[in-house]
């Protein structure tokens, strides 16, 4: 069997609250990063506050939250985070969110690569039925990446966000188990 935690250019690794909070606090200094990541008012939190938040996330109320750091294979740098949150076990649907912290790592295929790794984990390890995500209209780079990973457009909340003096849609995307299997199972075996 393959190493399911590694892709072509990145790998999933455990979240260390110390490393993560230090890096995330740095990434937060770039307001564009925060606006691509989050629909709420962006804010700056201390390393200590971010560490506390992450420690709480990792406790988890139950098995169903899979939080990973993203590391580059070339130089083993912590470049982002990705989370799979099983929202409904009886329907076996999960929500995925990911971000890459440094601008220099944007647009290089890391996001698509790590999403492929995560989908393989979701469908062949957690045995889910579908994976869902939301993305903002003003993030075409992410939308393109999710399409490449196999996500389909399933709907949009119109004029959902208010930013920079105008309103933007939030797009809903999803991928079903059969769709992923069809595209990936041969190469996976």
């Amino acid at each position, binding site marked *: 069997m393959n190493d399911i935690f590694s892709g072509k250019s990145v790998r999933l690794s455990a979240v260390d609250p110390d490393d993560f909070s230090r890096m995330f606090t740095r990434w937060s200094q770039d307001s564009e990063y925060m606006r691509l990541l989050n629909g709420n008012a962006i804010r700056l939190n201390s390393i200590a506050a971010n560490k506390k938040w992450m420690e709480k996330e990792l406790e988890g109320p139950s098995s*169903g939250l899979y939080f990973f750091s993203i590391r580059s294979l070339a130089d083993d740098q912590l470049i982002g985070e990705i989370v799979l949150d099983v929202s409904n076990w009886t329907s076996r649907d999960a929500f995925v969110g990911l971000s890459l912290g440094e601008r220099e790592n944007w647009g290089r295929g890391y996001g698509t690569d790590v999403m492929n790794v995560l989908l393989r984990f979701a469908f062949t390890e957690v*045995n889910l039925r579908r994976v869902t995500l939301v993305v903002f209209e003003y993030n075409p780079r992410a939308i393109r990446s999710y399409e490449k990973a196999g996500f389909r457009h399933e709907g949009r909340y119109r004029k959902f966000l208010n930013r920079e003096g105008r309103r933007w849609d939030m797009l809903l995307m999803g991928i079903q188990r059969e769709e992923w299997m069809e595209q990936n199972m041969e190469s996976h075996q």
Partner: protein
Amino acid sequence: MRNLFRGELVRLTAEEPGSRAKVEVHWQRDTEFHRLADSDPAGMESEKKLKEWFEKRNEEGFKPERYSFSVRTLDEDKLIGFFGLWLDLIHNEAWVGIGIGEREFWGKGYGTDMMKLCLQYAFTELNVYRVSLGLHAYNPRALRSYEKAGFRLEGCTRGDVAREGRRHDSLWMGILREEWIQMQNGDSK
């Protein structure tokens, strides 16, 4: 939609620590009940201790891997038994533990009715792929009831239980989703 919590002879209710502990005090004095239901040594606990134990289990009531019910008769609303489901969320299967504490309700179809509700809940609400259970080979009444509900005998661990000076086998049964659906369509033999 049909009422998943109501059978022909019994209905399912929430497990209330107070009333559950009260009946358990009586049930635990019946060592035959204990030996049919469990392989732990028969023990005696105070009502206070039992109530605390059930209160603790109540806290698990929101976990997606744990479901507990008390069972009451339809005609007298008497609390006669219980069942619980433990899910393996990743592999989407469940284990069931079930029992009737009130002797006068043994051998009258109450257990089979309970198990039907249990399977209906597991397959149509929890959407599991299979349900498993174990029983003592010296409990032929239970074996017959589980068979009636659709379980098949899948295995036997020989001599793993020591009781009353001799060794006894444990039996392992299971039912698959498609088998259960076929039974509901009236196709079973």
